[in-house]
């Protein structure tokens, strides 16, 4: 089965290891992965800030980049928020493009694809508790909240929902840059919940959006509280290649080391 990877700009530029992990787990599950090379960014940063014309231009470019070939192959996104941009916002920006409806229907989040295409069963052993953070757009715009947790369970992790899980972590795209003070106060509230989860045994903070995760990992790093932070794809890739352990999660997920591998 052919699968097109919607890498997303943050992962492409700052967390390429997650995209490589995604390619590996997709291929292990029988997918023939292609990466439309012209893809850049979905344009959400411009749309959210009120630059509609600019966002529309980026949306048109997305359609160009993905409509080139294999019009029916699933497009698997590595960010719930970027997938939501295409599925929920693009209709008002590029809804008039005849090529768009097929793209719209092809896009799904990685967790949905993984649930439909389960891979090799996780090597038994004990389930490793991890704290799971569901991104707001994943939860509220795509309506996915159990799916990523089901994927983690199948990978041998025990996802734990944070207290006040309904609360945004404060990332909010460029909100994190234009309003660093409020954004950071929100990150601290979220990280307090994460630390509670750590005390109860959570070995890592896992999410399916590097936006939220970079924001929280960046705060942990700045305040000297390094803790493993990983994307769902990273965790599944680890589980595919051996039993999940707290040590392997730490090795793979510590901020600042990721780029060095």
């Amino acid at each position, binding site marked *: 089965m052919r699968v097109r990877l919607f890498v997303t700009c943050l992962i492409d530029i700052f967390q*390429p290891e997650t995209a490589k992990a995604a390619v590996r787990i997709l291929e292990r599950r029988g997918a023939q992965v292609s990466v439309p090379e012209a893809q850049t960014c979905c344009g959400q940063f411009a749309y959210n800030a*009120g630059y509609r014309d600019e966002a529309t231009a*980026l949306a048109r470019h997305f359609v160009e980049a993905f409509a080139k070939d294999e019009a029916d192959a699933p497009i698997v996104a590595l960010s719930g928020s970027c997938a939501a941009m295409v599925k929920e916002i693009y209709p008002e920006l590029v809804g008039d493009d005849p090529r768009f409806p097929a793209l719209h229907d092809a896009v799904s989040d990685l967790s949905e694809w993984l649930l439909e295409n389960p891979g090799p069963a996780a090597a038994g052993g004990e389930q490793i508790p991890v704290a799971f953070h569901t991104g707001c757009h994943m939860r509220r715009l795509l309506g996915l909240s159990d799916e990523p947790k089901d994927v983690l369970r199948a990978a041998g992790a025990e996802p734990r929902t944070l207290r006040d899980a309904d609360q945004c972590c404060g990332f*909010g795209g460029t909100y994190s840059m234009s309003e660093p003070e409020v954004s950071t106060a929100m990150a601290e*509230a979220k990280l307090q919940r994460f630390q509670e989860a750590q005390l109860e045994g959570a070995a890592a903070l896992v999410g399916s959006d590097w936006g939220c995760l970079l924001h929280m990992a960046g705060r942990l790093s700045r305040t000297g509280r390094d803790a493993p932070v990983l994307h769902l794809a990273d965790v599944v890739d680890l589980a595919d290649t051996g039993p999940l352990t707290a040590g392997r999660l730490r090795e793979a997920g510590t901020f600042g080391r990721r780029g060095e591998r």
Partner: protein
Amino acid sequence: MREAWPIRRYRALQDGELRRTLARVLPRMAEGRVRAYEDDPEAEVRRVRARDRRREAVRNPGLVERAMAAIEARGGRAAQVRDGEEAAAYLIEIARRRGATRVVKSKSMVTEELELNQRLAAAGIEVRETDLGEYIIQLAGERPSHILAPAIHRNRSQVKDVFVDAATGFGVEAPASDDLDVLTAFARRQLRADFLSADIGVTGGNFLVAETGTLILITNEGNADMVTTLPEVHVALVGMEKVVESFEDLTDLLPVPAMNGVGRRLSSYTTMISGPRQPGQLEGPEEFHVLFVDNGRSQIRGTPFEEVLTCVRCGACYNVCPVFRQVGGHAYGSVYGGPIGSALTPLLSSLRYAHDLPESLCTLCHACVEACPMDIDLPHHFVALREQAVREGLKPKGVSLTYRTWSHWWESPRGYRRSIRLARLAQRLYERRGRLQGGPGLLGGWTRTRDMPPVARETFGEWWERQEERRHG
């Protein structure tokens, strides 16, 4: 003059006690709503019907006139007022005619909006707020910080401080402790005397039924019923968007504020007032007036923002908003705070006056629209207001230049890659121990409080290209 957002933000984030209080109280209110729906399977059906009736009502421009005719037919008086000045003039005229000097009020956001208390005070009329939360902030000289619980920013010991100061001024015994029953008893005792001696009672209105001219007041404390039945005059100020068509609509509407605000099927008191007292009746006012307030509402009607007028002021969006939970209501610098306030404030006044609200107090997390019983799509409206701010040139030039250049470069793979190569060069200035700890423009906003990984030595795209070349090359 409205204080600038950075000042309001600084003050709010400095206040750790405020954040602790909000973190304790707001989740409880939000969970109450969720549980109430779980507990009552038909509530969702009623909510959707209520929403549809509200949507029809705000689109119907004839309802106010129908309501006015119905009120007059039952012996009440009705008028329309454009703004705070007209509303105050109407009340001052009544006060002069009757020689009245003392007003008691129940909680009303619209009177806050009209700055009615200040206007009446300037005319020598003494106004006493009687809702416990409003009483606290009136004594403290503050503004409400939450639509349901105006004094939510104060904890019990801070409330006690306010009452102790007030007791000294009144020459009465101060509350002996910060026990909640003691504090409440102090307010009850003080306010009872005000109720019994007041000349005019002023209320807002949760809804008003056009068909019968019936005013609906929903409260828990019982103060509104004091205000409407003890003085000889009752004046209700009702936003023109609060009118609903028929009595039948109330079946689905009456439970909405309490269900969604605090998770109760009905508040303690739901009072329906259809006129002044009848001949032979001793309770209730001799005069019953309803003022329909515009104050910017008609400029929202018929625009893409019209649905914000369906808001029933339940407070559900305040309770779930993650930004509100960090900064509290005063940070909005406006009468209506919280998510709905971030839309209502600029729409009722102007975007130039309050574009900071939709821009700076929302991460677009969509929690508000999920909680809203009227399904008001606030995130959508915030984006539309941000777009309007861009069109009206309200954004700093440097910000617009950044977004435009960024978007332009990323419209092509070539520009995208070039920007990455440039960033790799530039980031050497800011890289410490494998992390970016500073940067220009927006990146600098990030790195002020958080580290950022540097641009990867090889992006995924570059790596993939290398793989493809190896495979096919």
